[in-house]
């Protein structure tokens, strides 16, 4: 069920209707849990059992860690092994087999692959339940009071399939709040949802029509069109994913729950380090807290820090998808983070450049790097990625179809407006719907979404992860 389809609006309406009829908060939460499982099972009901199993295993291991302190470390490793085992089997089994086949095929050997369906959002669910067990182990958070509470933390439908990745210490206290429908929450949640809808439907889905076509056969297009397609993809993936996050935060807000922001205008970053503080904040926080810091972080010398950065980003890349493209994308970002670290320590202090010049230059370089690295993220294989890069940098013929999609011209002002509105909402500045002008803007915005939406809703890019 995609947030931007009529199916979701009907589902959400029915959930709100039933919730408003129930009196007991416990019943409301049970209904919300049932609705979340329905939401997940809408794609493939079989995977609801997988999610239920992961929930039960991690909940009981969390309880065991608390109740049997002597065995807490083995319990932790069991939980991590089970979670990564499930993720590894469903997401990476065939990838590793195929990679191994590429290595052993000269010896005449071949390993068989399995027909495995990738459960939607499995990476997000795995990271979320792992974070819970690790937090309980580190006594950062107490265990959930009941399995139902933990089940709702895991399955809460607004953020279930594409994040933000919720940490128990952030969201368990939220879940303790009673579900009470308030006008303010609906107004704020509705505006956040609408902002996400605007990003997703009016910007990302429109750009997808251009991007998909060019990335499908880049050899047919002119070098300038490839540059535009890369820029378009950078905007598309940002609006697609941040749109989903806005919608998730907005939906949760309607129930009275607060979910932290996941994006903070990442394309304004002046360094790759800053980019990762602004892009997919819940993932970068997860990677920092549960991987980078346990590996030693920056506490064991410069070389170890750089190695840690590379390991974290390689695994972060692999988390996005079972393909070497994502590994390369992660490696590029890891290298960029390491380079920036070295630059910040050894080069920057000795430079005598006016700040505004260095800021503009840093912003352009960061944006250029991020956009170019998206090629490896989006391209289906390396040959496509390298063919694009060759053509873009005139290392091969630049000739081809020149297509300057109108959607890109609309997307740039669109993304500026959306980011500005997002910034205002993050400051708590919502339309209160008390003044005439506030009603006008709400209607104008709503009608714009209805009238200008493209006709074929695209699934969210991050659903595949």
């Amino acid at each position: 069920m995609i947030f931007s389809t009529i199916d979701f609006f009907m589902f959400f309406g029915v959930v709100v209707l039933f919730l408003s009829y129930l009196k007991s908060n416990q019943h409301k939460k049970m209904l919300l849990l049932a609705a979340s499982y329905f939401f997940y099972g809408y794609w493939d009901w079989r995977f609801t059992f997988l999610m239920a199993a992961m929930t039960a295993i991690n909940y009981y291991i969390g309880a065991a860690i608390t109740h049997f302190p002597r065995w807490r470390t083995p319990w932790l490793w069991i939980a991590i092994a089970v979670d990564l085992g499930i993720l590894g089997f469903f997401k990476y089994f065939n990838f590793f087999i195929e990679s191994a086949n590429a290595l052993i095929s000269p010896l005449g050997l071949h390993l068989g692959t399995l027909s495995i369906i990738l459960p939607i959002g499995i990476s997000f669910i795995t990271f979320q339940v792992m974070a819970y067990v690790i937090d309980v182990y580190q006594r950062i958070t107490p265990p959930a009071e009941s399995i139902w509470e933990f089940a709702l933390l895991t399955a809460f439908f607004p953020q279930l399939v594409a994040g933000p990745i919720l940490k128990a210490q952030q969201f368990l206290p939220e879940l303790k709040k009673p579900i009470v429908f308030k006008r303010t929450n609906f107004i704020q949640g509705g505006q956040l949802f609408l902002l996400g809808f605007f990003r997703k439907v009016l910007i990302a889905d429109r750009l997808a029509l251009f991007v998909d076509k060019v990335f499908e056969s880049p050899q047919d297009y002119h070098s300038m069109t490839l540059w535009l397609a890369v820029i378009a993809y950078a905007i598309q993936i940002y609006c697609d994913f941040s749109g989903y996050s806005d919608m998730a935060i907005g939906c949760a807000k309607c129930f009275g729950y607060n979910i932290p922001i996941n994006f903070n205008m990442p394309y304004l970053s002046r360094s790759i380090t800053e980019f990762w503080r602004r892009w997919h904040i819940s993932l970068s926080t997860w990677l920092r807290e549960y991987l980078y810091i346990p590996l030693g972080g920056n506490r064991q010398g410069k070389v170890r820090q750089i190695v840690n950065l590379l390991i974290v980003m390689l695994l972060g890349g692999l988390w996005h998808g079972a393909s070497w493209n994502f590994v390369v994308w992660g490696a590029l970002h890891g290298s960029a983070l390491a380079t920036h670290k070295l630059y910040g320590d050894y080069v920057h202090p000795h430079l005598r450049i006016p700040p505004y010049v260095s800021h503009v230059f840093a912003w352009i370089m960061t944006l250029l790097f991020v956009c170019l690295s998206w090629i490896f993220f989006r391209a289906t294989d390396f040959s496509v990625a390298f063919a694009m890069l060759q053509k873009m940098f005139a290392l091969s013929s630049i000739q081809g179809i020149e297509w300057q999609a109108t959607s890109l011209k609309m997307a740039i002002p669109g993304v500026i407006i959306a980011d500005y509105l997002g910034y205002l909402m993050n400051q708590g500045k919502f339309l209160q719907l008390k003044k005439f002008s506030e009603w006008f803007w709400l209607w104008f915005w709503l009608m714009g979404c209805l009238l200008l939406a493209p006709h074929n809703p695209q699934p969210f890019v991050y659903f595949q992860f």
Partner: protein
Amino acid sequence: MCNANVVEILRVCGVLAMTRWKQITKAAGAFAIAITLWEAILRHTLESTPGAWVHPQLGKIERKGLSVQGWEGFGRIQLNSLGMRESEITPKAAHEYRILMLGDSFTRADEIPEQQHFIHLAQVSLNQWAEANQAQQRVNIINAGKPGASPANYLYAAEFHRHTFTPDSVVIQLTAHDFTLDLRDESTEFYLQPKGNRFELTRNYQFQSDNRLAKTFTERMPQLQALLQFSILRVSGKQVQRMVSGTETDLVITNQVQAVTEAEIYDNASVADQQLVEWTLEQLDQAFPNLQIVFIPAINYFDVEHHDLKNEHPRNVALEKILAQTAAEKNIPFVSLRSDFIDFYRTHQAELSGFNNTQPGLGHLNAEGHQLVAQQLFQLYRSELSQ
């Protein structure tokens, strides 16, 4: 004491009611202004129509007025009282060589500005040539293109066309879907019904738009039909229809390539297709003076490097061949733009259809496509003029 409480309760209720009423009024007023603003925006950018009426011979046509469309490219055209992209038709002048151009949306070409339309380009070229060669006649090409039209429309209105326009020559623009879809589609306004090995021209008086909103208004609320002239209602109706039905209606290239051998090409055309083409061309030839046919093919540009008619849908390919063959047998000049389109693509790597807000290679002809059609029309009629 009791009275004071009642008064207080009433006062509070009154204040609440007033507050709620004020809120509702504000919201409704804001909604009205927002809707008006969007109506103005859509009318000037995306879709505006002067409405439609039913002409006794031409069928359902648009009223005189301004038509705007922004789905493909951007077009803002003036329609005459016959729903044609033309000024009002005047009697034929002396030394006027009048060509009537019949076709569908490829001919009316709402998405193309007047100066880039093939009719304008061909007319200018022909008249420049006539002037340079001191020919006596001057060419006037009338654009009678009507979106959704097929040869059934042209046959039904043939007499009307001959009498109204008194053309010296008639050009009919055809596409493969005229024969594969439109001509035998009973839901269209004019279609052909098979009667043995012949066909009967039939008018569907129940014909309605495929827009569900328009259908609903026509069937259930005919008194509100005038509302359909509001762009906001038409556009939002389409959007809701697509959201509910979940159909993919944005222009997307399928890239489906089916390779067939030369021998298989004819196998893909049924006997009925051959009969349909033969009967239709025969009727058109009898109905119109000095008939010429311009065929606009659908090209699969994404495999054009290996192009040899084999990359298209086999039935379309078969129909195109049958059309060319039948036209040759009946001595009807027949021009297919296929080789022009492919040569142009190979030279310039630019498709002849598609716009910046659609996908290249898909949809109606773009400015380059119109140039090529204009060149072919020029070639067709230059010799006529010299005679």
